[in-house]
């Protein structure tokens, strides 16, 4: 058995387990964590698949996936935390907002 096929098998199993966690939840952050894991493993899968088929040019695709995965994770987190993607820096750190007086937003 080809060594790249073994590695791909392990990565696919990892992705399936991450999908189980994404479905089970229970909070939205568990789902984001699972989606992030899934995206990271996609990068590895593409890279290893390129070597398996003897076409390492696929590494370009893996690089693009790495960029997209990071951007999407940060964007979804910002949306979940602030409910708004255009949130300004002055409201950063909602934890430091004084509880009384309705200071947030």
């Amino acid at each position, binding site marked *: 058995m080809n*060594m*790249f096929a*073994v*590695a791909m*098998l*392990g*990565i696919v*199993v*990892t992705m399936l*387990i*991450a999908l*189980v*966690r994404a479905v089970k939840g229970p*909070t*939205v*952050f*568990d789902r*984001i*964590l*699972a989606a*992030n*894991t899934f995206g*990271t*493993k996609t*990068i*590895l899968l593409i*890279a*290893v698949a390129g*070597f398996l088929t003897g076409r*390492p040019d696929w*590494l*370009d695709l*893996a*690089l693009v996936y*790495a*960029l997209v*995965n*990071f951007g999407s*994770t*940060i964007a979804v*987190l*910002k*949306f*979940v*935390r*602030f*409910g*708004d993607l255009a949130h300004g820096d002055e409201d950063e750190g*909602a*934890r430091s*907002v004084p*509880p009384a007086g309705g*200071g*947030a*937003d």
Partner: protein
Amino acid sequence: MELALDVASWFCLTVGAALCVIGAIGTLRLPDLYTRTHAASITDTLGAGLVLLGCLLQAGTPLVAVKLVMIYAFMLYTGPAAGHALVKAAYARGVLAAGIPEEAQEGERPSESDLPEEP
């Protein structure tokens, strides 16, 4: 020489894939978000690093090797950043850690009214 490279690739790829699976089992079985993040970070750094190192040993041309190193370098920068943002957002949202009494975790955490509604 060829054989030694193949053996090293076998080792790196199988150990890396095994670490990925172990980390995924951790994200499935650990009790709360914070410990799950810890398990997931193993697959992001050591698992991915070993798999990419195994590929690197089989890289034919320097260009392929440079691309693999770039992918790993990028993952090393973005993985901890995404994990930090995730845990910070979860903590601000009031996600509780398992095994610690709820009263002990309130501290300086903001009350729900300080944050916008969860979509």
